């Protein structure tokens, strides 16, 4: 029930944003369509949606965006430096890391955040193991270094989605 309501709210917000009109007929049709979409999505187990309606989780989601943006910009400057350097100082490889997050949605958000940040790309997600392709594997202790950079995100994501 909460799942349906939450999905309805988000779908209706997207409808209002796309149409940008408060005509009563359009709003009614949009509400009906959003409700239909929410009911049709019910078997897909969107357990995330109701959590995002809680205010403190929403607050952490809003804080998470600039933090992620800061990491993304740093990552981009790093990758851009490596790309325009004439000698290509790269040292690629696939490393493995383990996450302590429990739900599938939180793990997926973690994997997508990792893909966007410093020189890392999630190749696969099996159970609690993340296989991460890095553009520059550090010389010593690659696993421990990766683990430490994952923990920065885990704290936020646990407060948003778990």
């Amino acid at each position, binding site marked *: 029930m909460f799942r349906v309501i939450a999905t309805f709210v988000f779908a209706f917000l*997207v409808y209002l*944003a*796309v149409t*940008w009109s408060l005509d009563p007929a359009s709003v009614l049709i949009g509400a009906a369509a959003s409700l239909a979409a929410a009911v049709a999505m019910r078997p897909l187990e969107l357990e995330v949606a109701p959590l995002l309606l809680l205010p403190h989780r929403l607050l952490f989601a809003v804080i998470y965006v600039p933090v992620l943006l800061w990491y*993304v*910009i740093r*990552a*981009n400057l790093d*990758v*851009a430096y*490596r*790309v*325009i350097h004439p000698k*290509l100082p*790269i*040292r*690629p*490889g*696939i*490393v*493995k890391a383990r996450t302590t997050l429990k739900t599938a949605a939180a793990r997926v958000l973690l*994997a*997508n955040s990792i*893909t*966007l940040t410093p*020189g*890392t*790309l*999630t*190749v*696969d997600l099996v159970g609690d*193991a993340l*296989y991460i*392709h890095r*553009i520059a*594997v550090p010389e010593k202790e*690659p696993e421990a270094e990766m683990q430490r950079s994952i923990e920065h995100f885990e704290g936020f994501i646990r407060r948003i989605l778990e």
Partner: protein
Amino acid sequence: MTEWTFGTVAAAVVMAAGALFNLLGCIGLVRLPDVYNRVQASTKCVTLGTLLLLTGVIILFGFGSMGVKALVCLWFVAMTSPTAAHAIGRAAHRSGIRLWEKSVCDEYAKDREGAVEAPAGSPPAEEVAR
């Protein structure tokens, strides 16, 4: 964008940074040695570049009919682009494309060895690797 006020200058700076990142990402796409590195550079730089271009549109027009549409577009791109990169990387690894010969380690291939046979219909690894 004819008169130069604070808003237009901010939007111009953000959009210029976005276009620069797009260009750098595409240079990376051409220069780097193997598929995985190309996915890395191009996806990160081009995604951030496009997000910055859309942010410039939001700064320029405010949260009107256009800014909100740009926000929806921004959300879609931020959601789909890493997923597409992951899908390509996984499919490339599963179809047997090797990493660059100077790569340091490959835990994924080590863990996958013996766990699953090659998917049906895919050519053998030597045929695909360059």
